[in-house]
């Protein structure tokens, strides 16, 4: 009897030790995963995109009834606000017609000036509209999952835009889904310029709603309300994309309120500006000669027109 009890006790002890050992192994596995994933590991990235490729369409399918219910509620609200909205739209239409007139004048002026300068147009941009299936933003990361991957023409580095402005960039791409790193994420860095004062800076996310401006010159003239746009430096985004507005300037900390309302993102445009290829391929001319200091013929050269 005692022998039997003893063997049961020994088996329980062995089981307990095995359990503890396995637990320690799993903790070590988690540590290992952290260290493997710390640099932008290709294995982790591929695994992550494989999981997202499976789950993103699923999440999207389940989200449809929610979207439909929300749209119906919004339709009912719209119906009641129809009259007031109609009047507001009429007023807005008048203003927009005036803007259209101005835009046409500017377009004509722009075309004639371009002709005068023999200006070479940049390549046309292409874009893919992808629906946001999940907002995976949390306390420690700001990013989205969108339904659209390599099959739809989405590529790493493309700018993610809404009608309001820059939202982020494509960080990882799977076959059917992609991960967008928002400009508010702590890892996001966007070269920007203040539209009025032309002060250059880097917009750095802080995992909060408002990113900050870094590396501004000491004698900068940035004020609250200034529009911030991309500067085009670094070659990730083209110049002039609207980013946000300076919300506060306190003790050297300049916070920017992004134009994009991140809580209402439903669709996002992923735009391919083909930036790395602009100079060498897309213009169809050998621009290396034009950029050369010894070149005497191209308009890009300082000696042109002499």
């Amino acid at each position, binding site marked *: 009897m005692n022998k039997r009890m003893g063997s049961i006790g020994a088996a329980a002890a062995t089981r307990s030790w095995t*359990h503890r050992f*396995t*637990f320690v192994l*799993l*903790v070590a596995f*988690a*540590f*290992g*995963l*952290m*260290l*493997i*994933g*710390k640099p932008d590991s290709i294995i*982790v990235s591929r*695994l*992550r995109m494989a*999981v*997202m490729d499976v*789950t993103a369409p*699923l*999440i*999207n399918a*389940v*989200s449809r009834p*929610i*979207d439909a219910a*929300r749209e119906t509620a919004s339709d009912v609200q719209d119906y009641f606000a129809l009259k007031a909205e109609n009047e507001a739209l009429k007023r807005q239409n008048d203003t927009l017609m005036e803007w259209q007139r101005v835009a046409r004048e500017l377009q004509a002026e722009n075309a004639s000036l371009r002709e005068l300068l023999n200006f070479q147009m940049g390549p046309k941009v292409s874009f893919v509209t992808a629906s*946001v*299936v*999940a*907002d*995976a*933003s*949390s*306390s*420690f*990361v700001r*990013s989205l*999952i969108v339904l659209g991957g390599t099959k739809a023409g989405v590529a790493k580095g493309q700018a993610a835009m809404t009608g309001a402005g820059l939202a982020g960039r494509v960080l990882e791409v799977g076959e059917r889904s992609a*991960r967008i790193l928002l400009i508010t994420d*702590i*890892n996001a860095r966007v070269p920007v310029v203040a539209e009025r004062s032309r002060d250059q800076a880097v917009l750095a996310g*802080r*995992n*909060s709603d408002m990113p900050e401006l870094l590396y501004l010159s000491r004698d900068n003239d940035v004020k609250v309300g200034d529009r911030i746009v991309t500067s085009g430096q670094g070659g990730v985004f083209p110049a002039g994309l609207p980013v946000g507005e300076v919300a506060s300037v306190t003790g050297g900390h300049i916070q920017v309120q992004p134009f994009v309302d*991140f*809580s*209402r*993102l*439903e669709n996002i445009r992923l735009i391919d500006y083909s930036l790395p290829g602009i100079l060498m391929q897309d213009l169809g001319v050998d621009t290396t000669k034009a950029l050369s200091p010894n070149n005497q013929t191209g308009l890009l050269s300082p000696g042109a027109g002499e």
Partner: protein
Amino acid sequence: MIRPSLGQQADIAWRAALPVGLTILLLFTALLSWHLPRLGTVASALVLISVFFWTVHQPGLMTMWGVLSIGLLHDFLMLAPIGVGLLVLLVVHGVALWQRKPLNGMPFLLIWAVFGLVAACATILTWLLVSFLQETLVNPVQAFNLFLLEFVCYPPLAYVFAWIERRLLPTD
């Protein structure tokens, strides 16, 4: 010995998978496009509460393998530094398992307080790991928000889980 029928086996299987399945379902539900800001924080909070609750009340059904699958899925979907969520969930599971017996005899308010302590430590650990991996001090206010959400959400979720446990799961 009478072998259970196929229907009975399926019944036992889905009940056994309930805690882990429910946690994964909560993670997915929080990630659906509700168009509310930072639902990822809610997803992390729900998962931590679920792992703690089920480890204390049904440790046989919330095993470390279950925590492993939840943690991996969480890290892949939440897009946070990989491994961090898994490690924190494993630690919470380990602590809850270790203190399971005294916790089971405690009144609810005391269990809530202990959960608060565990959640605070888990949040600090997450904050430290993320800061280390991103080589910069992450805003502590965000970490505090996560803790607050976990602490506040515990009573209602624990109530729902306890109801599910009473109705659907066998007594431990």
